[in-house]
């Protein structure tokens, strides 16, 4: 910058305020204002001294900033240039930017179709990406509500550990600062006379909150001794449950009736805390017994300070050695094998990752396609503006300024798209939370203002990317040449190669998405093809919890009463109960002995306790023998029904009817029937051997059971759920209904996240196809328009219309095929991303790839055919006269 003309004897102006002022003044006035200021500064310095003079300069500048900023804004907006400054116009950057944005908005307003198309296209991509990004960030990136989560890990074989093992290892968890054992232990909560309700809860050893490192909001967590037999029963509440109970701090010390017994509230966890999933609302210490060998605990530990989870090998080896010394595990449950620690984040939310990332990737692809689309639109604009830009440049506008204008236009589109996109994001957020397989985690996904800012940031970034294409084309192009060409309206020298490559990219991205969606659709179709062996259309399910306060005989009576009462409801054909339903992931495996086959290895099979009529209600088909009957009472011979898989495994080539099995109860049970194999474990498991016995004939009746309601043929099972729920509450107010659902929904859940991701991906793929088609259409239309004169001459010379269409479509086809090839290669390379969601199809499934290819070809060729048809109808006389 040129030095201010300051007389030699005067001290120069302090540099910082001078620089601020210089940056805010119009070019023509800078020097004089600074000179005048320096002059007065000098006078004041001579009169009052340096410091008061400096203070005066600072005050002058700081008080000038607001009015100067306002002036820049106003000058940019109104284009005002004072008469005296005409020879040296212009001012701060801000001014020219405002001018350009204003010019851009005016231009956009005068081309509503282009603007609307660009803004909406971009807004779709931006809104969707912002919504899904917010969800992904909330679940995969935001810290978990535990202190130093990187030190917390979950042991191998989760929910297979026993209290005995925990107590044995507890004395020396070397390498860990603390380890806690926990299992799910849902509770019924009874408040006054209201019907009992279910509180999803965790039962754990006292170390739990110390391991997680989260301090309670009120009161305390657990302390040593809380998990001993005879200790005072206590409970820690979640923030949500505390709020529902009134949100009064005096709750600490009060008693709540949980599972029919009193528990003292000792603490309330802070808002936002959850473990192990957000639906859990209470934590209780559970008395640990040396003798308890039922394996349903998971171990979660915090590694000792200075240790890292990945480097725990030696400590784990010591633990395993101690286990090996004490226990002799059967091969299938050997806890000394596959001993790994899973970081807590991986354990808790790792299963969500593939679905979330696949969706985020799909959204990102849509955003890219949208960007490419808007970029081609803008390129078309630049092309049709070629003469305007050429005139401007001839009149002295430099390329920097023309670039600035293009960027301003992209930014204007981007900001508009960001605003619309934020609205879309807010709408899409709810939709996505519901559509994604988030399960319990849906609760943690809340719409925050950050979605808006994310949308804006993405939109601006996208706008800058979009501006790149026309800017590059501007810098490469020959502006002066455009002026001559514009007059003759001849075929452009450039063949629109950048437009073409953008369309190839769009088609490639769309193929990539279509291939991904195709894989998921095929997987889900295969999953639905599996026969679960039960009726999934006419069965409603009510999961009930009787609470801990009842004895086994009382529970039997209760189940009988409930079955009878619910069975009397209109539209119900029969009602039965079971302790565990098919398609819910297995569990409850009991040891089995086969009479006369002592040589069989000790092993277990799925064991189900049911009421008579359960097998019929569930729609399991009887293969031979009979199903259990009411007459099989407590004093009659114990009977068991086995499924085909069990018969095949233990009685190959024999008739199992009449043979006897042992379960560990006194004596034997006689096999009276064989039913078809139902998916008692996971849907995709191999046929699971299972056996069914009656509540009346086993000493054990669990707290949690399911009522199975078979409706009349043709009825919707969901329709009876409400009445059934009310009946349960009327007959047994102390029973809590955990879940009311249908076997159809249980089946859908068993199909798993692939189904939901598929639905989402199918929608997004449709979007991608539409956007891709719009891109092809736009580019081919532009191609056709540029060559209008060409077509006219050809048609005038007698070329058949079909030939013209052929040429145009041929050009489109070349782009589409190029895009498809690129897309297929990318699809094969990237399919691994969704591999964990796939079932029964490889990542390079030819059918999916062929489907994606043909979809793109069909849509793309149609999009190219329309402008081709239009070209073939060109009226040569009209066009040539126009020129």
């Amino acid at each position: 910058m040129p030095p201010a003309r300051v007389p030699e004897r005067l001290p120069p102006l302090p540099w910082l305020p001078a620089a601020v002022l210089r940056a805010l003044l119009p070019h023509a006035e800078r020097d004089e204002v600074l000179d005048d200021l320096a002059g007065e500064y000098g006078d004041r310095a001579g009169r009052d001294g340096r410091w008061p003079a400096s203070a005066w300069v600072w005050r002058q500048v700081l008080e000038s900033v607001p009015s100067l900023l306002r002036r820049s804004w106003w000058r940019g907006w109104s284009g005002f240039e004072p008469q005296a400054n005409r020879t040296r116009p212009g001012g701060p950057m801000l001014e020219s930017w405002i001018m350009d944005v204003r010019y851009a908005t005016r231009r956009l307003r005068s081309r509503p179709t282009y603007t609307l198309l660009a803004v909406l296209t971009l807004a779709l991509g931006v809104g969707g990406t912002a919504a899904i990004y917010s969800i992904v960030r909330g679940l995969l990136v935001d810290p978990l509500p535990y202190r130093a989560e990187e030190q917390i890990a979950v042991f191998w074989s989760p929910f297979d550990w026993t209290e005995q093992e925990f107590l044995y290892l507890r004395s020396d968890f070397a390498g860990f600062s603390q380890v806690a054992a926990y299992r799910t232990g849902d509770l019924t909560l009874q408040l006054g006379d209201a019907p009992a309700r279910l509180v999803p809860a965790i039962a754990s050893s006292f170390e739990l909150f110390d391991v997680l490192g989260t301090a309670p909001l009120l009161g305390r967590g657990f302390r040593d001794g809380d998990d001993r037999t005879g200790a005072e029963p206590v409970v820690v509440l979640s923030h949500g449950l505390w709020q529902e109970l009134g949100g009064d701090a005096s709750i600490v010390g009060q008693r709540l009736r949980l599972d029919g017994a009193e528990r003292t509230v000792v603490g309330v966890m802070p808002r936002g805390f959850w473990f192990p999933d957000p639906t859990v609302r209470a934590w209780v210490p559970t008395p640990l017994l040396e003798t308890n060998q039922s394996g349903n605990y998971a171990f979660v530990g915090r590694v000792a300070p200075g240790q890292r989870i990945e480097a725990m090998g030696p400590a784990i080896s010591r633990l395993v050695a101690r286990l090996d010394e004490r226990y002799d595990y059967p091969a299938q449950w050997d806890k000394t094998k596959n001993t790994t620690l899973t970081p807590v984040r991986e354990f808790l939310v790792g299963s969500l990752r593939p679905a979330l990332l696949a969706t985020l990737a799909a959204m990102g692809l849509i955003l890219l396609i949208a960007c490419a689309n808007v970029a081609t639109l803008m390129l078309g604009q630049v092309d049709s503006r070629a003469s305007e830009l050429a005139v401007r440049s001839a009149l002295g506008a430099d390329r920097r300024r023309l670039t600035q204008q293009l960027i301003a236009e992209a930014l204007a589109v981007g900001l508009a798209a960001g605003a619309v996109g934020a609205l879309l994001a807010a709408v899409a957020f709810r939709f996505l939370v519901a559509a994604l397989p988030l399960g319990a985690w849906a609760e943690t996904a809340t719409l925050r203002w950050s979605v808006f800012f994310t949308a804006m940031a993405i939109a601006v970034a996208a706008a800058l990317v979009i501006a790149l294409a026309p800017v590059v084309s501007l810098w490469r192009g020959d502006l002066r040449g455009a002026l001559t060409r514009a007059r003759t309206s001849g075929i452009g020298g450039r063949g629109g190669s950048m437009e073409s490559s953008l369309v190839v990219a769009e088609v490639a991205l769309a193929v990539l998405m279509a291939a991904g969606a195709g894989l998921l659709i095929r997987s889900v179709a295969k999953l639905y093809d599996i026969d679960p062996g039960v009726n999934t259309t006419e069965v409603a399910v009510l999961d009930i919890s009787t609470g801990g306060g009842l004895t086994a005989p009382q529970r039997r009576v209760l189940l009988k009463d409930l079955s009878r009462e619910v069975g009397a409801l209109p539209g119900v054909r029969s009602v039965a109960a079971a302790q565990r339903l098919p398609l819910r992931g297995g569990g409850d495996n009991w040891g089995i002995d086969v009479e006369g086959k002592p040589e069989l290895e000790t092993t277990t099979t799925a064991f189900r306790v049911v009421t008579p009529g359960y097998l019929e209600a569930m729609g399991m088909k009887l293969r031979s023998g009979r199903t259990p009957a009411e007459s099989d009472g407590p004093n009659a011979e114990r009977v068991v029904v086995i499924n085909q898989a069990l018969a095949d495994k233990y009685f190959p080539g024999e008739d199992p009817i009449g043979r006897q099995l042992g379960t560990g109860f006194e004596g034997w049970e006689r096999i009276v029937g064989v039913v078809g194999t139902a998916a008692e474990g996971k849907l995709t498991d191999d046929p699971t051997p299972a056996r069914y016995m009656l509540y009346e004939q086993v000493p054990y009746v669990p707290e949690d059971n399911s009522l199975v309601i078979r409706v009349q043929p043709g009825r919707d099972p969901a329709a009876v759920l409400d009445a059934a729920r009310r009946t349960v509450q009327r007959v047994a107010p102390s029973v809590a209904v955990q879940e009311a659902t249908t076997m159809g929904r249980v089946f859908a859940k068993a199909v798993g996240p692939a189904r939901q991701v598929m639905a989402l991906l199918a929608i997004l793929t449709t979007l991608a196809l539409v956007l891709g088609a719009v891109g092809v259409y736009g580019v081919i239309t532009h191609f056709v328009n540029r060559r209008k004169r060409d077509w006219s001459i050809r048609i005038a010379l007698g070329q058949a219309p079909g030939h013209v269409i052929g040429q145009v479509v041929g050009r489109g086809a070349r782009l589409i095929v190029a895009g498809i090839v690129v897309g297929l290669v990318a699809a094969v390379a990237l399919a691994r991303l969704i591999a964990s969601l796939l079932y029964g199809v490889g990542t390079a499934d030819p059918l999916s790839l062929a489907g994606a290819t043909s979809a793109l070809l069909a849509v793309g060729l149609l999009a190219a055919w329309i402008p081709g048809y239009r070209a073939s109808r060109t009226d040569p006389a009209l066009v040539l006269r126009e020129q």
Partner: protein
Amino acid sequence: MDEGPLGTFEEQVMLCVVRTGGDAYGMSVRRELERVTERDIAIGAVYATLDRLEAKGLVASSRAGTGGASRRVFSVTSDGARALAESRAMRDRLWRGVDVLRLLAGER
């Protein structure tokens, strides 16, 4: 263009342009304003107001001096003079019948 009545600061700036005679540039107008109003005035506010007044056609600016030493000097246009007269006339009308001495003496 009719922009309604002059703002107080606009009027003050215009009057100071007149008062500084033929040598009305940004800093001299600012100094004059400070001298008369006995308040600190920021140079930026003076320039911004002068621009606005010029856009309204109430003052005009031109270059005095040559080359790098040239200055933007201001003068009040005939429109500006009319606006000043108008402003003053309106103020006089408003003052008519107001006995400020009685008010100052605390009477109603």
